[in-house]
C-alpha cells in the first residue's frame, strides 16, 4: 500500500513536471528579461537639398540689385 501510493505520487509529480516543461516557452532559449524595449531606428530620410549655399546654385531673386 505504502509502496504503491508513494510510487503513484512520485510518478504523478514527474508527469506534472514533464508537462510543465513541454509547454514552457523558455525551455530552449533564455528569455531577454531586461524589460527594456527599444524603438527601431530606421535609416534617416534624405531631406531635399536647398538651392543656394548647399548646392552652389543661384537662388531666385538673389541677384537683384
Amino acid at each position: 500500500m505504502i509502496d504503491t501510493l508513494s510510487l503513484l505520487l512520485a510518478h504523478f509529480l514527474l508527469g506534472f513536471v514533464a508537462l510543465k516543461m513541454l509547454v514552457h516557452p523558455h525551455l530552449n532559449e533564455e528569455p531577454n528579461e531586461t524589460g527594456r524595449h527599444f524603438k527601431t531606428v530606421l535609416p534617416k530620410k534624405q531631406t531635399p537639398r536647398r538651392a543656394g549655399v548647399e548646392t552652389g546654385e543661384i537662388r531666385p531673386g538673389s541677384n537683384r540689385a
Partner: protein
Amino acid sequence: MRDLFLIGFLVGIMLLGFRRPFLFLCTYIYVDIVSPQRLSYYLLSSVPISLMVFVASFAGWAMNDDKSLSKPTPRQILLIILLLLCAYTTATADYPDAAAEKWDWVWKAMVFAIFMPVTLYTRVRIEGILLFMLLSISSIAIVGGMKTLAGGGGYGTLNLMVANNSGMYESSTISAFAISSIPLILYMAKYSTIVVPTIFSRLYWYAFAFACLLIPIGTQTRTGLLCIVLMAVLELRAARRRMTYLAIMAAIVIGGIPFLPKSYTQRMDTIQGYHADASASTRLAVWKWTIEYAKDHPFGGGFNSYIGNKLEIDMSYKTADGTVVKMIGYDAGRAFHNAYFEMLGEQGYPGLAIFLMVHLIGIVRMEVIRRTYRKHQGENAWVSPLAAALQNGHLIYMLGCSFVGIAFQPFIYFMIAVEIGFDRYVQTHIKKRAWNPFRKRRREIETEAQIAQEEEPHPEAPTPQPTMAERRRTQPRWGTMSGK
C-alpha cells in the same frame, strides 16, 4: 499492474520527448535513479531501456539543440581522461569478469556526465533536470520515510520496494544521497519556477525533506547520521537568524532522541568504539590493504579489485576492569567501503587525483558563484542559493562517500554535470547582465581595436626617405641671406 503502470508512464514520457527532445534526457535520469526495470516483474526487465533512452537523448540533442555552447570545459576534459583511464584499467584488470560487469554501467554514467552539461543552457533546463533528480529519488525516499514512521526500519531490512540491497537502493547509499538532496529540496521550495512556490508545493517539499531525514534512521546507517550533522552545520551558514536556527536544531535533537528506536541508538553508539565493532575494524583493515595494494599497482587493479584482498582484522578491546582482550579476525574479498580508497584501489593514483580534482573544482566553483552573487536581488536572486545548495549537497556526498564505495554512482555525476552546466550558464547569461562599472562593452572593444589598427604604421610600405632636392622644395624656408 505495476508493470503496466510503469510501461505506460515510460511510453508517455517518451512520446512527449518527440515534441521536446530534452525530455529524453530527463527520462534517462528517471530510468537511472528509479530503475523501473528493477521494480517491474516481467516486461521492462527484459528490455535495455537505459541504453535506448541514452541513444534517444543524444539523438535529440544532435537534431534539435543549440550547439554553440558545446565547447568542453576543463572538468569535462578531466572526466574524459578518467573514462579513458577506466577503460585501460578494465582492459588490464586483475579480475577481468568482475571489472567488465562494473564497467557496463560506469561508462554510461560517465559518458552521460560528460554529455549533459552541453544541453543545460537555460535556467528551465537546469531546474528541470534537478527536479527530475529529486522527484526520482523521492520515489525511494518517501517509501523509506513512511515505513520508518510506521516502524518498519532496520539495518539492511528496510524494504525499499526491491528485494536486493544494491545500487541506489542500498542502505548507506540511499542515506548519503537522500541527505545530500535536502539542500536542493529546500532550494526548490523557495526558488523553483517550474513548480511555483505555493503553500501546497512547500508542504510537499518540506515533507519530502523530512522523509529524507528519516532514511538514515530507518536504514540505521551511521553514514547517514554523520551526513545529517554536516548538513545541519552547512545550513547554519545560510540561515538568517542563526540563534533561532540553533535553538530549533537543539529542540529537535532533545525532543527526537526519546522517539528513536533502541536498536538505532545502540548502533550509533558504536561510532565511538570502532575497535570492538567488526564492521569498522574490517573497513580499517581494507583501507590498509588498499594502500599496500596501490604500492604494487600504482595504476590500479581495475574495477572490483578488492576481490583479491585477504585481511587480518584487529578486533582487540578493553574490558571495564582495564584488561585488554586480544582478538584477531580473518576475512577475504571485502569491499572498499570508501570512495577514495575505491578510486585508489581500482584506478590507482592517477584515478584518485582526477577524482579529487573533479570534485574539488566543483566545490570551489560553486563557492565562487555563491560569494559573487550573494547580494544580488531581483531576477538573479536565485543564483547564489542554487550554488550554495549544489555545494552543500556535494560536500555531504564527499563526507558520505568516506564510508560507502559510491565513487561511480550516477547520481553524483548528474550533480557534477548540473554544476558544470550551471557554472557556464552563469558565465554566459548572468555575468553579462550584472552591472559592472569596469566592464568594457563589445562596441568599445571593437572601436579600440579599430583605432589601434589605424594608428599602427603599415609595415609593408615604409615611408620613403625624400631626396635632397625634394626636401629643399618641400621644407619651409625661413628666408635667404639675399633677402629675396
